[in-house]
């Protein structure tokens, strides 16, 4: 077996305990609620029979170990239960909500990478003013809370200039152009902070590669500067940039919870926030589960990509 293949298998196997830990955390959400979670969910006007019935439906009257295996079994079968408020199937609800979150975070990350990486390279190799300007962008991008930036963008682009709608959502398959108009401000809001992080990482990764002796050797050989930067420095900096992009997906998913609420986008994040305020625990569980699962999957893919980009990582893991 090649060391590469062994690295991939090892990394895949490592995901199993992480998924199990996540399933336990999500399983415990409803069970750790102080007092009687069913009573809290239904409110004080619910009758005792009603409370008992819901408790039975949720399986909370069975032994805790049985409950956990029922829960795991349900997950594996794709049976996520039903929403307490709307009585809709949670699997269907998730299928409606997930594409919105995917579009929001995916577009934001795409823009952040398209802006952050080239600017980061310029910041590492360019003159003094570009260093100053990018430094300013990084400090502001990291310090401005995304939800406040979102509100300010609404103030400028929706309230004052009336160019874009302040909030709302139209599915892409219904009206693609309108969908993008609704998505523009939320995506921009999330992308600014991300671009700052990616710029900073790219800059320091490229900077550290540019000080390595082989760069001087390439220069002495007469290789053009742009070839050194893009063909060698960026190539060597790629693993650290990809690692940070992977980590930042988690931050972006957290940001999506706020941004979806701010812009009234029907994504998974808003689903969770609404469910918490309604004490709708089964829906909270499913929403948390979905976001955490995406996060774990993205970390897996990131590690595999880094292993592929930098053979030392995959070889080192196998020895």
């Amino acid at each position, binding site marked *: 077996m090649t060391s590469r293949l062994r690295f991939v298998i090892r990394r895949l196997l490592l995901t199993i305990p992480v998924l199990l830990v996540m399933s336990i955390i999500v399983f415990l959400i409803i069970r750790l609620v102080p007092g009687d979670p069913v009573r809290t969910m239904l409110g004080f006007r619910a009758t005792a029979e009603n409370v008992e019935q819901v408790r039975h439906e949720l399986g909370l009257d069975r032994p805790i170990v049985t409950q956990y295996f029922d829960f795991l079994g349900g997950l594996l079968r794709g049976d996520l239960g039903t929403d307490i408020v709307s009585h809709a199937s949670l699997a269907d609800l998730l299928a409606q909500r997930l594409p919105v979150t995917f579009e929001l975070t995916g577009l934001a990350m795409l823009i952040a990478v398209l802006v952050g990486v080239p600017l980061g390279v310029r910041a590492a190799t360019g003159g003094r003013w570009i260093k100053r300007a990018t430094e300013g962008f990084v400090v502001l991008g990291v310090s401005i809370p995304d939800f406040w930036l979102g509100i300010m963008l609404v*103030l400028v682009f929706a*309230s004052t200039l009336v160019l874009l709608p302040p909030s709302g959502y139209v599915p892409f398959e219904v009206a693609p152009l309108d969908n993008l108009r609704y998505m523009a401000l939320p995506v921009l809001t999330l992308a600014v902070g991300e671009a700052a992080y990616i710029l900073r990482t790219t800059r320091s990764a490229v900077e550290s590669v540019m000080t390595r002796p082989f760069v001087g050797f390439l220069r002495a050989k007469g290789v053009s500067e742009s070839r050194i930067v893009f063909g060698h420095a960026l190539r060597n900096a790629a693993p650290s940039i990809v690692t940070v992009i992977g980590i930042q997906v988690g931050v972006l998913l957290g940001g999506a919870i706020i941004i979806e609420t701010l812009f009234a986008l029907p994504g998974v994040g808003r689903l969770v926030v609404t469910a918490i305020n309604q004490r709708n625990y089964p829906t909270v569980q499913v929403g948390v589960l979905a976001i955490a699962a995406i996060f774990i999957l993205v970390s897996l893919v990131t590690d595999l990509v880094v292993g592929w980009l930098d053979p030392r990582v995959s070889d080192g893991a196998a020895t």
Partner: protein
Amino acid sequence: MTATIVAPATPQRRSKRASNNAVLAGAIILGLLALVAIFAPLLAPHDPETVVADQVLGAPSLEHPFGSDALGRDVLSRVMFGLRVSLLVSLAAVLVSTAIAVPLGLLAGYFGGLTDTAISRVLDMVLVLPALLLAITFIAILGPGSTVAALAIAVIYLPILARVMRSSTLVVTRNDYVLGARARGAGHLRVLIGHVAPNALGPVIVQASVLSAFALQLEAALSFLGLGTQPPTPSLGGMLSDGRDVLSQAPWVEIFPGLTIVVAVLSFTLLGEGLRRAFDPKGVAA
């Protein structure tokens, strides 16, 4: 061979003086904000919770420099009291987290082996969920409120701070003076408290000050979602959530609390980055 190659113009590290200036600027702004927060009851021109019917959405004026909100409450006074809550929650969170993380990281780094594995694996579990999601999960279980928000933030930071403490302990433990102390017959506890801990704390303090900036943002985000500090207690995040509905008529309700968060976060960041350059040149905390 490599020595003869002329090193390319390395991207210059920021000079020591610039970094001192950054620390100073961060410390001064933070100090001013802290004074405003502490003395809010004396400094605030109005009561932050008093509803004044004829002042609804009043524009900034001499009487109300930051204007007034949808209930006619003075925005400046609310920002002052909100800052109090925000700083308190974020500092409490970081302090609690550091107080638990330091001994854990110290034990893991000093003893290594099974102790290290046990502590590190348990802490790793916390990192399974994205930070904000974890905080929200915590609040979903215990119910919203500023105490729960502080606890949630503390839990998120625990593995990060413990990891930094662990790696700096690893470095310090290998020093000769630690071996010397052991050889002189000092017990583990004495070596840990007297020799290892004081020398290993630097990077943790740096990391804690950087994390305070994020704690402030997190607290504001949670309160904005209605999951942190509960009304009528003013909080910066909660004010942003109230101001959203009146954004086009009265942008000042939104702009001032937001700017306050930005300034506070910025000063924590300046302070943290400056401290990092001063105390942690090897970048253990990075």
